[in-house]
């Protein structure tokens, strides 16, 4: 029999839609009882002797709970005592609509065989289907449907020959419903939230102690968050000081905590702590918000707990642990931080987020939660019918809004990037997550490229020094196509040496202010990933016109010194030039030429001269206190077909590497001096601040554990003591120390000379420094080129170049891009490491303990440059007994073994793909003690690295 169900619905665009569904009624839906002979049910669920000990009903009976009873008394229904319950379809649908967690629980109960819960699809049963009547509310109709079904059961079972005393009992919360049911001749009992589980419970043996905790979470439309104030009130509030404006920064380890960085007057920014969802009030990472400070007595200390919002996926699951959340242990008052709450959002900083879908447990649900890869971002609820197609894929989702009554922000699906774990997808993800602009260059940008075929014109030659006769060559890593530097060295008639560093003249092609320039300025740097390069300038420039390839005429910006044999500079000269490189060598090739005594051509002699000078320069630099640091860097050997990593190799340094580096440093320093001389207000320089002494604590302690002393009062002292720190029989020890020292360093940054007073480059021990030598891959160098060109009258200036504020903003962008490029690079290495280990399977490797923590040790496998943490405590499981000595630092496990820094250990390395979004390298100890599990630190873990 066919009926149709009609209802009206509001569409997202505000329209009203009438929806008509066909609804089929059938007469082959069985009652599910063992006593029934009429129904042809093969395996009835409800038992013949349905007997629950009850004071109210002494005869066997089946229970039919109504919706509210299921919603509020799910704890009791779940009790093993409760058996032979008929769950009506009406009830199930209503429960599902109102509370997903309860729905999940009742479904679980139904699936449990011993409980004998039977789902009766009364809505499709010919005799129990009821149509909504005029003037009847949806709830009333459902109540009636439940009563009709109960009535049907009663009559149906009475017909059974051996039903005996068997009855059906309707359970309801509602007095009116009970009365109506009794009128119909039904046996109905009312159970209120208070009465049912209490001592008067008609059902004995039910666990009385249970509390009704779910009550509040069922009300669907309740408001979870306080209202945001309108902008006008926020503005007056900020003006009179009641509110503070700042950037919202979510805590990545604890979703209930965040800080707001308040931009104070001048330098002193303060941080305001926010705790609890209510106080965070729907702010998302990086939003500009207005906060109100609490009075001092309500200030709190940041909690150290790690709380992950990994709730069951039910879209409406409320945070039960919200109540558990540390009502913030009152710590020492010194720990207390200014605490407040968000009162309004000044500017949202939402961008499309990348992540994965966690499918709702309810099969046909259309609302699903999306978990962003970035843990600062809350989970986002999206609506889609294609959830099953999107699971396991990396997708992009944009936030649409965050209503007051919603636990999660609402968003929509934007784009599918591809399967998680795919190389292309993951690369795309890490580029997106690190905000690396990687779209192909636009038409507007490309229109500013020189027309092909391009050749050097007469005019160019007129204004440039013609250095094509010089024996210039370039030395680069293998496979390098963007060659931006070349060198030469020749003997002058007076016995001195002439050394030239020739840098690609990129600023000749990129004119200030045009689209090409703007794009390059925005990109800031070329990003090198494993097997992929994201260019800062279009390929025509980076790999052809600007690249100083051999045997073609190229425009260059040359820095030429006259030096004596002691590498003392007698004269420095900068000029725009035309060069013709005679050879593009790799480091290894150059090294071979120098070492091969039979080679005696111009190029080789030139290289030998350079090498000799470089050694002197390096010695002098180290003398002054330049640091030689180390970080375990790896290179992958890629399969040429699949681009899968097939082998790993730590980077090897040759003499020629440092030869090129020395001259680049020299050129950079010379240029820095020159442009600062000319433009003391607006020179773009690079500085490396000295780290605070406390940064070195770990290094000093570590050395002490091996009875060595590290002096940190000056760079020179540090360099010397690092050189002296050698252990016999442990050659890698010195490298380990240098790795540690690297971690103590600060980040080097670009700045504008007019905006700062401290110019020192700590790592290089140079009073002034800039970047001049890689204009193809760094925008800073292009600016430096322009400044230098103006300084030597080779080019004109333009207003932005001389504006220190504009330059300062540019520096900020460059520093940001630079940092992001590094993170992206590291993430790419981490991902390829994972791929590598995925192919390798389980490996046993030797490593060294790099750090000792309270509950873990961090291990470095030198062979792979791979770092991992071995935890001695597992979530939930009691771990072994640990005692931590912070002085050593050392960690004693089970009183058996004590781990010190630099100890050699053996670990197994495997890939843990259980969380597909954050795949991890797992390490577990094999020697000296086995059986401890591990996780790899986050790819973006703090790992400052000295970057020149």
């Amino acid at each position, binding site marked *: 029999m066919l009926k149709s169900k009609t209802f009206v619905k509001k569409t997202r665009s505000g*329209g*009203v839609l009438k929806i008509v569904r066909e609804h089929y009624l059938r007469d082959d839906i069985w009652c599910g009882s063992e006593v029934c002979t009429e129904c042809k049910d093969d395996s009835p669920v409800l038992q013949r002797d349905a007997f629950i000990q009850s004071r109210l009903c002494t005869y066997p009976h089946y229970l039919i709970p109504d919706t509210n009873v299921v919603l509020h008394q799910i704890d009791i229904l779940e009790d093993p005592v409760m058996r032979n319950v008929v769950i009506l379809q009406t009830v199930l649908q209503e429960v599902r609509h109102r509370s997903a967690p309860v729905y999940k629980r009742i479904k679980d109960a139904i699936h449990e065989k011993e409980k004998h819960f039977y789902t009766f699809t009364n809505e499709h049963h010919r005799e129990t289907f009821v149509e909504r009547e005029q003037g009847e509310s949806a709830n009333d109709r459902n109540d009636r449907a439940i009563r009709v079904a109960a009535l049907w059961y009663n009559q149906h079972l009475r017909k059974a020959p051996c039903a005996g005393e068997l009855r059906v009992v309707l359970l309801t919360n509602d007095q009116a419903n009970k009365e109506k049911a009794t009128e119909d001749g039904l046996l109905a009992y009312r159970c209120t939230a208070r009465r049912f589980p209490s001592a008067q419970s008609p059902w004995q043996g039910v666990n009385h102690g249970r509390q009704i905790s779910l009550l509040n979470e069922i009300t669907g439309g309740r408001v979870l968050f306080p209202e945001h104030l309108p902008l006008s009130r926020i503005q007056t509030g900020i003006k009179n000081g009641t509110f503070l404006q700042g950037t919202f920064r979510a805590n990545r380890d604890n979703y209930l905590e965040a800080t707001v960085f308040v931009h104070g007057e001048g330098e002193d920014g303060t941080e305001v702590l926010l705790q609890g969802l209510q106080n965070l009030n729907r702010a998302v990472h990086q939003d500009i918000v207005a906060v109100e400070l609490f009075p001092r007595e309500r200030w709190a200390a940041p909690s150290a707990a790690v709380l992950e919002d990994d709730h069951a996926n039910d879209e409406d699951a409320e945070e039960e642990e919200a109540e558990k959340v540390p009502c913030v242990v009152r710590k020492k008052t010194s720990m207390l931080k200014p605490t407040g709450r968000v009162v309004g959002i000044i500017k949202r900083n939402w961008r499309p987020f990348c992540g994965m879908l966690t499918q709702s447990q309810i099969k046909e649900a259309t609302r699903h939660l999306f978990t962003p890869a970035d843990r600062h971002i809350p989970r986002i609820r999206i609506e889609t019918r294609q959830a099953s197609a999107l699971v396991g894929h990396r997708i992009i989702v944009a936030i649409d809004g965050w209503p007051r009554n919603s636990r999660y922000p609402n968003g929509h699906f934007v784009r599918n990037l591809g399967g998680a774990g795919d190389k292309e997808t993951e690369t795309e993800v890490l580029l997106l997550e690190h905000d690396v602009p990687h779209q192909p260059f636009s038409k507007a940008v490309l229109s500013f490229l020189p027309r092909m075929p391009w050749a050097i014109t007469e005019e160019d030659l007129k204004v440039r020094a013609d250095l094509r006769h010089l024996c210039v060559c370039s030395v680069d890593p293998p496979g390098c196509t963007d060659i931006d530097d070349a060198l030469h060295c020749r003997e002058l008639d007076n016995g001195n040496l002439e050394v030239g560093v020739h840098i690609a003249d990129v600023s000749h092609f990129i004119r200030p202010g045009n689209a090409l320039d703007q794009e390059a300025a925005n990109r800031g740097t070329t990003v090198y990933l494993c097997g992929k390069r994201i260019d800062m300038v279009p390929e025509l420039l980076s790999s052809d016109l600007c690249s100083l390839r051999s045997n073609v005429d190229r425009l260059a910006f040359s820095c030429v010194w006259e030096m004596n044999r002691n590498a003392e500079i007698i004269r420095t000269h900068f000029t725009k030039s035309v060069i013709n490189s005679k050879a593009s060598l790799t480091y290894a090739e150059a090294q071979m030429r120098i070492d091969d005594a039979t080679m005696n051509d111009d190029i080789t002699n030139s290289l030998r001269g350079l090498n000799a000078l470089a050694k002197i320069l390096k010695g002098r630099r180290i003398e002054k206190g330049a640091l030689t640091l180390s970080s375990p860097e790896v290179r992958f050997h890629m399969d040429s077909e699949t681009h899968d990593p097939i082998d790993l190799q730590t980077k090897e340094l040759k003499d020629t590497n440092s030869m090129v580096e020395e001259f680049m440093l020299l050129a950079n320093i010379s240029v820095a001096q020159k442009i600062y001389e000319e433009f003391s207000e607006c020179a773009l320089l690079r500085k490396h601040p000295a780290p605070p002494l406390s940064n070195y604590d770990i290094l000093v302690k570590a050395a002490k554990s091996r009875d060595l002393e590290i002096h940190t009062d000056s760079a020179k002292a540090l360099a010397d003591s690092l050189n002296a720190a050698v252990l016999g029989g442990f050659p890698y020890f010195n490298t380990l120390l240098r790795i540690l020292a690297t971690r103590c360093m600060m980040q080097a940054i670009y700045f504008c000379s007019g905006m700062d007073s401290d110019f020192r480059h700590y790592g290089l021990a140079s009073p002034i420094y800039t970047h001049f030598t890689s204009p193809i891959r760094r925008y800073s160098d292009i600016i430096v080129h322009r400044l230098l060109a103006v300084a030597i009258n080779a080019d004109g200036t333009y207003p932005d170049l001389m504006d220190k504020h504009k330059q300062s903003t540019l520096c900020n962008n460059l520093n940001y891009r630079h940092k992001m490029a590094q993170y992206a690079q590291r993430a790419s290495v981490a991902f390829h490491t994972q791929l590598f280990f995925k192919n390798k399977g389980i490996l046993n490797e030797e490593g060294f303990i790099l750090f000792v923590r309270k509950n873990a040790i961090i291990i470095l496998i030198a062979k792979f440059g791979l770092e991992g943490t071995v935890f001695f405590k597992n979530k939930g499981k009691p771990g072994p007994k640990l005692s931590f000595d912070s002085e050593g630092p050392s960690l004693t496990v089970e009183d058996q073994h004590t781990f010190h820094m630099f100890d050699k250990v053996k670990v197994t390395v495997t890939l843990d793909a259980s969380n597909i979004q954050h795949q991890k390298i797992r390490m577990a100890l094999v020697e000296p003690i086995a059986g401890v599990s591990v996780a790899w630190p986050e790819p973006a873990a703090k790992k400052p690295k000295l970057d020149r």
Partner: protein
Amino acid sequence: MASVQISEAEKVYIMHGVRDDLRVDGRGCEDYRHMEIETDVVSNTDGSAKVRMGHTDVLVGIKAELRRPRPNVPDEGYLEFFVDCSANATPEFEGRGGEELGVELSNTLYKVFNSHRSLDLRSLCVCPGEHCWVLYVDVLLLQCDGNLFDAMSIAIKAALFNTRIPKVRVLEDEEGGKEIELSDDPYDCLRLRVDNIPCIVTLCKVGHRHVVDATLQEKACSAASLLVAVTPRGAVTCVRKLGAGSLDPDSIFEMTETGKRVGKALHAPLMELLQKDESLGKKRQKVGFLA
């Protein structure tokens, strides 16, 4: 429009019959054919009706949608007409054959019905200047056997009578934004007042007389016909001449008078029928398309 070819002798026979007030099928000049009306035939519309008049078969569905009111009348809703000449009706409509006729018919319907005199358009306004109900009236010609306009107008009137628009309320939130809230009860809906909705009476000039509800054969004998839209009170809202021939002023006057008379007489039984049908409620026997 659909037409039939008939011989001269047939024409003469028909014309003589009309002159004597006796038409081929036995009707008088002012008689309609047998009519069947059923409402609520398409469940996923907001209102629908099917009218069968002789072999002419017309289905009308009305969908209400929330739209922005027209800027010149911000406090009124409006109607949109679309006539689909399906190839079912006659093979001539196949492909794009019916398109031109469809546009012509819908334009005429628009002229006849979309006026605040025939329907209280203000009652369709939800929120002046922002939201109003737009009634999309879709007419589907299932079979053509002459007198399309009259059948369509009766079907439209019946469908409008049958239309139930869900009730909405406009809520204003704190920020001054307006939101539309739907009533939870499907029975809670807006009905239209159809008291002033006109019916179309098409008068076909055959010889010196005119007939209402002309069949295709009678139409073939006539050079011009006059369309008169009449409200239940006898007011004429629209007059249009159809066909290639001309009409002299006297006969136009005469035909309008007949139209008024016939139209007035048509409304009363129609409304009675619709109301009776409605009062049956759920007990009403549905016939649908299987009749």
